[in-house]
Each structure stands twice: as C-alpha cells, then as structure tokens.
C-alpha cells in the first residue's frame, strides 16, 4: 500500500516538473530570438503585423496594476468581513455569510466575466461618461470581487484559531470588544491574514477568463497618469489565452515565453506565501 501512496506523490511532483520543464523549453527560444530586453521591456506588441514586434511590458504592467488595484479594493473589504464573521457575527449570520463566501468561491470565472461584461462595463461607461467601459478599472473591480473568498476564508480561519484566553484576558483588563478584536485577535492572527492576502494576489494574477471579457484586450501601455484606468488593456494571462488558438511560428513561441514570465510571477508569489507561513509557524 505504501507504494501506491508513493506513486501518487511522485506523480504529482512529476506533473509539476513536466510543466516547468515544458514551459522553460518552449519559452526560452522566443526570448532568445527576440532578445531579452526587447521582449521584457518592449512597449509594443503586434504579433501578426508585417513587421511583428513582441514587447510585453504593457502586459506585465497591466498585470501588476490590475492585481494591486484589486488588492486595494479587496483587502479592506475582505479583512473587515473576516473580522466581523469571526468575532462579532451571531451564529446564524455567520453561517449565512460563510455560505455566501463559499458560493462566491465556487462561481466559475466565466460567469464573473459575463456579469462584468453586462453590468460593470456599461456601468463604468455611464458613470464616467466614457465612450466605452471595457477598461483596467472594470478588470480591477471584477478581480477585487474574485479575490474576496481567498481573503475572507483564510483570514476567518486564522482569526478563529486565536486562543480564547487571549481575548478573555484583554476583556478582563477592561478593553471593549472592538479593541480586543483589532488589538489582540488581529495581531495574533497576522501571519494567517498575510497569507490570505498573498493567496488573493495569486488568484488575481492568474485569472484569465473574467478579465479577458471586461478589460478590452488591446495591447495598450497602461499609463495611469493619462487616464489609463479607463483604457483598454491586456493582462499577461489574456495575452496568452486570446492569441493561442490561431497562433503560429514565432508568435506561438512568444506566447509560451509570456506563459513562462507569468509562471515566474506565480513562483514568486508562492515563495512569499511560504516564507510568511514558515515565520508564522515558527513562533
């Protein structure tokens, strides 16, 4: 029986290795042919033009801005929701809220995209008086909703795990419930909360379908100073997904290179997550 478990474990590692090796092998040639700096810092992407150019800086910046924006909106909302669920909500309310969060986590991303396309995009268009609402902002709003479940669920678990004695001691010393929650429970659960944020970042940076449907998908540089929040943009994920179907030659290889860059981003996020969890565990 031991062998079966070992085989399962090895199979999983094998898949990870296979994907890594495949991505590196198929991603390197295009970077080599295009030139590392031209590829990473080029500002123009025109993969099927007569004189193609393959610069992915617009995608990298869009992914960073989009994720940062989603976190800016999602962290406060998710954090306060988690504190409320864990520390203040009556049992019935807690069950309803947790159920809703679970449901939010289970909704397929294409549904988020569709709702974004039908509600958020026209909404942005009318609210800001723009010709079209498909923009970085629309993607940020959709992503901020999509990261909520990761943030809320993991934070609630962390807050629930704070020993009751800490809070009892705080209350006995005369602190009220709010002070106890924010001065005692939250600091005690901080590594778990930080982990929830990093998980949210991972979710946001890896999302393709939903942002593809609301971000407009044109390879513009996202210049925040010039109203770039309302520009049509393309993320790293959508750059791969949108052109893969009909791509050929160097274009296809360059798409693999983008996937490799994305993969490195995700590795970085995971490394941060691991180091946070280790620190938390060490205490």
């Amino acid at each position: 029986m031991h062998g079966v478990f070992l085989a399962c474990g090895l199979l999983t590692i094998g898949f990870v290795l296979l994907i890594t090796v495949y991505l590196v092998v198929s991603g390197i040639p295009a970077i080599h042919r295009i030139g590392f700096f031209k590829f990473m810092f080029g500002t123009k992407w025109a993969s099927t033009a007569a004189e193609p150019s393959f610069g992915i800086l617009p995608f990298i910046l869009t992914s960073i801005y989009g994720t940062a924006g989603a976190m800016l909106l999602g962290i406060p909302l998710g954090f306060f929701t988690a504190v409320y669920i864990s520390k203040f909500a009556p049992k019935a309310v807690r069950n309803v809220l947790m159920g809703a969060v679970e449901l939010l986590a289970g909704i397929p991303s294409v549904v988020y995209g569709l709702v974004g396309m039908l509600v958020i995009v026209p909404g942005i268009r009318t609210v800001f008086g723009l010709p079209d609402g498909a923009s970085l902002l629309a993607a940020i709003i959709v992503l901020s909703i999509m990261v909520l479940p990761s943030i809320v669920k993991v934070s609630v678990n962390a807050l629930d795990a704070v020993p009751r004695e800490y809070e009892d001691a705080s209350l006995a010393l005369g602190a009220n419930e709010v002070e106890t929650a924010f001065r005692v429970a939250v600091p005690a659960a901080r590594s778990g909360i930080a982990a929830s944020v990093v998980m949210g970042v991972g979710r946001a940076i890896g999302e393709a379908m939903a942002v593809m449907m609301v971000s407009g998908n044109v390879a513009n540089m996202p210049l925040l100073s010039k109203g770039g929040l309302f520009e049509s943009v393309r993320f790293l994920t959508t750059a791969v997904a949108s052109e893969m179907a009909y791509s050929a030659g160097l274009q296809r290889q360059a798409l693999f290179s983008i996937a490799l860059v994305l993969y490195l981003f995700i590795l970085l996020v995971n490394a941060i997550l691991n180091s946070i969890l280790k620190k938390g565990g060490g205490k």
Partner: protein
Amino acid sequence: MKKKVALVLMVVLAMAMAFATGSSEKSANGSSVSTDGSTSMEKVIGALGESFMQQHSSITFTYNPTGSGSGIKAVLEGRCDIGLSSRALKEEEKAQGLVETVLAYDGIALIVNPNNPIDELDVDTIAKMFKGEITNWKEVGGDDAGIVLIGREAGSGTRDGFESITKTVDACLYRQELTSTGDVITTVSQNPYAIGYASLAAIKDTVKALAVNGVEPSEETVKDGSYAIQRPFVLVTKQGVALSSAAQMFFEYATSSEAAPIIGAAGAVAAN
C-alpha cells in the same frame, strides 16, 4: 499480484500493437485526401472533413493550416491534393494552370447597436472609421458621440477577412479585441456607440447589421456578389493533374448540395 499485473499489461500491449498495425495497414490500403492552405477556412473544411470521414471510414482526411498563399503553392508543387484559398486566384496563378472552384462565401456583417440611427455605410467610410480617421458618429450622420471600435484578436479568420477586404490590415485602432463572435455581439448590443464585425451566419436580433454600399447583408446578396464585405473560400486544383479517387470523392462531396448545411453550420454561405 505483481505477476498478474505484468500479465495484464502484456496482453494490453499486445492488443494495442495488433490494433496499431491493423489500422496502419488499413490506411495504406485505403487512401487519403490532403488539403493545405487558408487558416480562415479551418472551421468549414474541418466540418466537411469530419463528415466525409464518417461516411468513408477507410479514407484519411488531413488539413494543414498554412495560409492561402502556401496552400496555392502546395498545389502547384504537388504537395497536396487540394489547396484552400480564402481569396480568388490571381491571373498569374491561373496562368500557371491552377483552377479555382468556389466552395463557399464568407460574408462579414458590420454590426451596430439597434439604437444607433445609422443603417448604412460604404466600404471607404468603414475603413476610415476603423483606421481612426473618422472618430465621431456625427461625421457619418449619426449622434454626436465617439465611435467605439470592437474587433477580434490577432490571428482570427474574421479579423483577417474584414481587414483584408477593407484594406485596413494592421491599421485598425480597436477599443476592444475580443476572442469570440459571441463576445463581439454582446459588447455591441450593450454599447449604443459601438461598431464591430462578425460572421454573417452568427448575427442575432440584439444587434443591427448595416447595409454596405446600399446592399443589405444576406445569404443571397453574399452569393450574388452584391454585398461588398465578403470573400470566396476556394478549392484550388491543378489543370491536367487528375485527382486521386479519394480526393475526387471529397471534391464532389464538398461541392455537392449535401454539404451545404454543414458549410452553413460552420458560418459560411455554401456556393452550391
């Protein structure tokens, strides 16, 4: 236990090998049809090939998506049975002995929101709009509002068709590049100032298809050539070179009325 597993594995392997040799013999005895060319024709030719192989299980059908130019060249050099081109043959290509047979027409409809007062544009105006030379609807007689250009992703057959017919290749300044016909239609139906393009067969009531040069897009106007934004899907063969019997069978099947509904389902208008 281990021995049993090994035994089962060996039996499975032996069966697989027997099956593999059997099937390879079959395809050697049976024959094949190879097609090569236009990537835009992928859907049409793929659907035809599939239904053809269902009827003739002994014939292998292959399609090599290389582009119209290479497909035509492949026929000329005898590297495939039938070439596929999403444009009519040029005079010099015909002079080299190539023969074109129109399989179907690809009509591309220009779509706007139903609330847009514009009903008709000409090809020049459309090209200017997509190149960003006309940016406001009032310049073409509509409301005073910016034109929102909705297109398809690089590499899409519809985009390639639209841009090559309107001569705007690589020059379109899209506001959105969407990855499916459905997304284009949904987006246009949501935005009163959007204009986009989509395969004629996919148009729904939620959007309005514009008349181009005064001609309404429909199967008939695409077929008789009066609707301007369309292109032929052509089967290319070489004069004096007889097709293999399998290729001849496919050729006849594809151009028969029997194949028309399949071509229609794949988004084009059958020629026959």
